[in-house]
């Protein structure tokens, strides 16, 4: 069981959360300025890296806040959680 430290609620079981994808996905400021290819790349393509990744998680069954975690997706070790970056 992964224990995910919600920045507000503290360590909680992983099934209180919803995985929210890669934190490197950043919504473009003005989608209308992108080509179709760039928009498709933003919408669908992932780095999907193996190893240490920075992700967004949502405390769906708790405080319902979004935050980021730095996790190793081979060992499931979680290095840090925080509210930096694009999450709010």
């Amino acid at each position: 069981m992964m224990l995910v430290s919600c920045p507000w609620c503290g360590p909680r079981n992983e099934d209180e959360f919803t995985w929210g994808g890669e934190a490197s996905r950043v919504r473009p400021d003005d989608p209308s300025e992108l080509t179709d290819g760039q928009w498709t790349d933003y919408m669908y393509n992932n780095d999907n890296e193996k190893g240490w990744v920075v992700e967004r998680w949502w405390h769906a069954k708790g405080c319902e806040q979004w935050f980021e975690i730095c996790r190793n997706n081979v060992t499931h070790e979680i290095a840090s959680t925080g509210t930096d970056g694009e999450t709010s």
Partner: protein
Amino acid sequence: MANTMHIYGARYEMMSLEEIKRRLPIFEPSADTRMPIVGGVYQPDATMVRHDAVAWGFARSADSRGVDIIQNCEVTGILRNGSGVTGVETTRGTIKAKKVGMAVAGHGSVVAAMAGLRLPIVTQPLQAWVSEPIKPVLDEIVVIRNYFGTYLMQSDKGEIVIGQGCDPYSSYAQRGTFPIIENATSAMLEIFPRFKRLKLLRHWAGMLDMTYDGSPIISKTDIPGFYIDVAGSGGFKTTPIAAKTHAHLIATDQPHKLTRDLGLNRFGTGHLVVEGGVSANH
């Protein structure tokens, strides 16, 4: 789902609760079970195969046709020039090639990244559990289509083989975590309570490359000569036809008629292929 099977020529029969009890004597839901089973669908043509026998069959046949199968040889790079792909770097040396096909279930993004490509996939764990061998109690493959979607069968060695859906986060750990185990076994025990004392001997998780529509990508790429066969939720069952259509694509540089709609460009055009039987999880 049953109607879709019917349209494509697979036989199916609706089953009442009494018919389920007749076919599965170990089906013993309690009167106050939280999610009562009300009926079922039976596909008489379904069966189990020995997956390792199928893999060895293909390997022997390919070998006898002159294919070199090089084991313990990891691809570490994909070589390109201005015109397209030129070969692969491996832990045992360079292999030049005018065409390179990728079929590396679970490491699609890792290998595609060697060619500078990002893919519309996430890699998630799919757990499986195998019990100690027990006397024959289960003739059929059972899929419990309640909220949790547990499926189970009994192998020819007597083991009960159990599976469910993917763990809902990206992972290359090949083991998954406890919430799925709890969901899968609680669904199974609600209707097969005599499995409460079953000892589970083996547990692992595969790495599944999941697309947003749950359908495979068997496709050319922007790199001439580089073909990919990745994702899709059919599992082992669809590997023979995926291999056949991927081979067709590599040999002719054109998609097989069955996989014309499964190109990488469908995400850009919006023509996602969402079929009734897929198990896309996000």
